[in-house]
């Protein structure tokens, strides 16, 4: 491994919008590329994405390889694979990163098998060792351990969890190049088309600025509504810990923790959540954590900024009312000032 040939990241998009994990990959990728003294590039597949390619440069990319064709507007596993494998074989990056999203988890393994190289899933940390090898760190066994993994082949590939790495601030002064490689477009063998559902407009728990998370402290499925009401008052989203999914009270989309979503909201309310290691790994990097639990020894208090011991059935309705009152006061104040 005498020469290193750059860091490449996959910037995924759905419906023409680049997933924010791409900026996080660029943030981490920039750090690694600078440490190794190599170039950072991004791959973007989509339709009419020139402006988005430019945005990736503002976020840290030196080069953006843009595969721009109507046929690539929606994720097409085989056509994405064909174009990216050809690109990687030509550019020969030393490191290739993807987001650990449904698209990244589908595409990454195919690329790795096709390129004859290893892939580490779901990394929460990436480091470069003294010899310039990528150390891929991922939680294993329900987050009880952190496994350090290295790859003996090239490129060294990893999928990286969303909301773990830091994006760089947008810098419209940054210069970079957009390259449009030759396209390979075949008849799609696996074609995806979106099915309209009630759920699609809802903000996901991993994107939310405020999360109200319920746990085993809830006594019956109807009580989830109480948390939804609090989330509504805050303009946030409801999450849950694993027992509520296992009980069938909430869908897995709302699950926060090792087997679900990682969240990093401005405020995380843990309501009746005991704080198992599997749960903590999914929320401990939240900016502020408020924990409400009847058990003063609950593990969740170890990571909380504000710890409230008490009955959630008494506190949550009062808190929801107080939040609404505070918001109304704000609106009245705005009205008076204008």
């Amino acid at each position: 491994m005498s020469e290193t040939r750059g860091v490449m990241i996959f910037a995924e998009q759905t419906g023409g919008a680049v997933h924010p994990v791409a900026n996080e990959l660029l943030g981490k990728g920039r750090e690694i590329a600078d440490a190794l003294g190599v170039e950072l590039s991004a791959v973007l597949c989509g339709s009419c994405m020139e402006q988005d390619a430019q945005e990736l440069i503002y976020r840290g990319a030196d080069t953006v390889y843009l595969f721009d064709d109507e046929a690539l507007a929606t994720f097409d596993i085989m056509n994405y694979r064909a174009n990216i494998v050809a690109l990687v074989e030509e550019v020969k990056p030393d490191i290739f990163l993807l987001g650990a999203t449904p698209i990244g988890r589908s595409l990454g393994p195919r690329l790795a098998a096709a390129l004859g190289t290893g892939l580490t899933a779901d990394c929460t940390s990436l480091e470069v060792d003294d010899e310039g090898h990528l150390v891929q760190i991922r939680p294993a066994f329900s987050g009880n351990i952190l496994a350090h993994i290295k790859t003996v082949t090239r490129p060294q590939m990893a999928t990286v969890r969303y909301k773990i790495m830091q994006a760089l601030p947008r810098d419209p002064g940054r210069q970079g190049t957009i390259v449009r490689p030759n396209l390979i477009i075949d008849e799609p063998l696996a074609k995806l088309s979106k099915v309209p559902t009630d759920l699609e407009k809802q903000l996901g728990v991993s994107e939310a600025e405020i999360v109200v998370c319920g746990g085993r402290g809830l006594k019956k499925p109807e009580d989830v509504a109480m948390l939804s009401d609090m989330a509504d008052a805050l303009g946030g989203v409801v999450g849950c810990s694993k027992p509520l999914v296992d009980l069938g009270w909430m869908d897995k989309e709302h699950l926060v923790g090792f087997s679900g979503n990682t969240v990093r909201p401005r405020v995380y309310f843990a309501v009746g959540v005991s704080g198992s290691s599997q749960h903590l790994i999914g929320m401990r990097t939240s900016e502020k954590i408020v924990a409400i639990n009847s058990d003063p020894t609950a593990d969740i208090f170890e990571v909380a900024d504000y710890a409230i011991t008490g009955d959630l059935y008494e506190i949550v309705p009062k808190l929801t009312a107080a939040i609404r009152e505070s918001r109304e006061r704000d609106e009245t104040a705005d009205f008076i000032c204008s």
Partner: protein
Amino acid sequence: MFRIVVAVKQVPDMERVKFDTVAGRVDRSSAPAVVNPVDLHALEMALRIRDEHGGEVVVISMGPQQADSALKECLARGADRVVLLADKAFAGADTWATSYTLASAVKKLGGCDLFICGEKTVDGDTGQVGPETAEWLGFPHVNYVREIVSIDGQLKALCDMSDGMYLAQVTLPALLTVTRKAHRPRYATPQRIFAAVDATIEKWGTTELADLATSDNFGLRGSPTRLTKVVVPPVEGRKGERLGGSADEVVAALVERLETGGIL
């Protein structure tokens, strides 16, 4: 004949397994081994397709000799044939080497029309073996399938992506990974359980796969990723503030802090 291959893995029961924080690994003797839960949903999907369209369901698993009990469970639940891929040379495989071995076994079977597996295992938790196997086989794949809509030359299925539900139209042969939202697994019948207990499980090793695979690609030797270190992470606490008093008092105190913090 329409052949559906299902891949399953025997895993420790992660809800019950104890963790050795000193050695940094699970104590496998502390919990029973089970079939990876979502794999049973994959098997159920295969059995339903077979029941409706005909054909056979072959379940394969790579693992130690004891993993034959997982395959006996699949027989009891309705599989037509099971094959255990057991060989010391397969040990220590990462997802690349595992998928290579599974794909080699499919070739040994004479190929298949459909390959179905769970979206991921509860112990490895990577979700990579399915798509990697598809690449080795040259099949298109669809992840996170929850329901088959139709099979008529091509297969239509509903799958969950992060931004909603998608209809996938895939050309056969193909590989599907399924989620736990897919059909609830059927129970084994007593007759099938009795038959499965006494069944002799077909076992393949490097010898059986010799013509179809390069043995350098098996197991730890074939694995491009290497575990170099295991760290038991310390719990990093926060200097939390305990808010005490009556419910009204704690609510007032919290709202005041949220207002000061610019959150309200």
